């Protein structure tokens, strides 16, 4: 039995007069890994940032339509609440440079002033770092600054930071584009494990990555959601000519 966790209804985003996401309708199920792919400037990142209301932080950015999280429109909720329910991992690893690895993992609690006991924190830190496949590497240096880690480790630390807030949904904005191939594969391997407990939406402009990690893929082109289907189906027998052009490399 599949249940919907995120649903976009006639969702549009704008930067000033520039219409970047056009009338998107999409429905994403629990515990799915969704890849969102498309050429640069197709609106895929803007769409992603609309889901947890990060889009509106940019001056002049506006949006129309609905994004339903568990049936409730995020645009009717408090933005701060929405963002604490949805995890996000960015293009470049961005651990807090003033905090240790340990503090980075529980940053969502620390920075929000949520009081939790030391014992609870210890549990959250170990669990989150284990889920992010980083625990073994950093368990002896938890009180060092997070910025001493390698790029791939930093990105997994950011994933641990998102997991620590126990979100249902985690958004990834080209999470491996700033990483080397080895770090990339360690992060990709992680997606398979995270799937058991979370729903993942991964924006990528790397087609191979979309094919490797996702259950279903959404293809965006010029702000439109062109096609949304099983990843296998999409890569072997796309329904739309534009999708076919994209995956055969006729434009990038």
């Amino acid at each position, binding site marked *: 039995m599949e249940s919907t966790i995120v649903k976009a209804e006639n969702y549009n985003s704008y930067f000033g007069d520039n219409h970047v996401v056009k009338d998107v309708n999409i429905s994403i199920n629990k515990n799915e890994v969704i890849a969102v792919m498309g050429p640069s400037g197709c609106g895929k990142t803007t769409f992603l940032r609309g889901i947890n209301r*990060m889009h509106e932080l940019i*001056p002049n950015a506006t949006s129309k339509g609905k994004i339903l999280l568990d049936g409730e429109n995020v645009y009717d909720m408090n933005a701060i609440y929405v963002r604490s329910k949805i995890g996000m991992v960015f293009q470049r690893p961005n651990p807090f440079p003033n905090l240790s690895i340990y503090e980075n993992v529980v940053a969502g609690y620390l920075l929000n002033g949520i009081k939790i006991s030391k014992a609870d924190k210890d549990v959250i830190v170990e669990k989150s770092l284990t889920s992010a496949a980083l625990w073994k590497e950093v368990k002896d240096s938890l009180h060092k600054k997070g910025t001493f880690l390698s790029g791939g480790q930093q990105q997994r630390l950011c994933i641990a930071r998102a997991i620590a807030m126990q979100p249902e949904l985690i958004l990834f904005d080209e999470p491996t584009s700033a990483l080397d191939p080895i770090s990339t594969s360690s992060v990709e391997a992680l997606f398979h494990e995270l799937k058991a407990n979370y729903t993942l939406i991964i924006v990528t402009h790397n087609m191979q990555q979309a094919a490797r990690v996702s259950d279903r893929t959404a293809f965006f082109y010029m702000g439109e959601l062109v096609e949304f289907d099983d990843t296998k189906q999409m890569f072997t027998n796309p329904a739309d000519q534009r999708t076919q052009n994209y995956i055969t490399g006729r434009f990038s």
Partner: protein
Amino acid sequence: MELNIGLRNTKSAIFKGIIVFFAFLITVPLIVVLGYIIKQGIFQVNWHFLTSVPAPVGETGGGIINALVGSFIMVMVAAVVAIPVGMAAGIYLSENPRSKLAYYSGLCVDILQGVPSIVVGIVVYFWIVKPLGTFSALSGSAALAIMMLPIVIRSTEQTLKMLPDSLKEAALSLGVPYHRVILKVIVPCGFAGILSGIMLSIARVIGETAPLLFTAFGNPYLSYSLTKPMESLPHLIFTYATSPYDDWHNLAWGASFILLMFVLVLNIFTKVLTRKWKVQL
């Protein structure tokens, strides 16, 4: 085209020589001034000098405790006002660089930085000294605070502007409200830079004489009262150096030495602290 490698290398060597020469040359005035003040001032400094008030004319001895205490109190009061106000304004300027308010307040900061310190003194005289009917330490602090503001504002703004946006996004995406993003993430990450701006502003105003001439005025006695005239190091140096007495000249040299050492130590201290607390991005 023929390439004359030898000539090119010679030109490069000459150019390099010139910049090294001037880089060295600019250290000469500092070393000369430093050396001269140390030579003149260091033998004036002893326990008596640091702990007693100036002696009346005709008596030997006397110290500068009134000016030390006065400078300390006035700069501290100025700092307590200027630091929070300046930091808040600096945060606003770095957060909203494109707003109209930021444009005009940025312009005001630039102009304020260019206002001659004596003019600041006169303005404070008309604002505070005249209405209160007396010279006071408080008015001196007000003048110094106005001098400190642009330095604190600009250094806060510049430091925070250098922090990457991704830092703010990381915090916001965790559902952290804006004020906590600024206070718990942005300001701590830029703390070293903000601190160095604060220290520099203190080092800058501690040596200001002009704004204190019509405000704190000066006081030959030790005073702790903010509502009464107060002595300060630079003002004491000014009065004693322009006096006709030789032993007063010596006191002025001693006070100059103390002031110089304070600024020097503050600068070194700032360098060490900023290096230690600098957040590795």
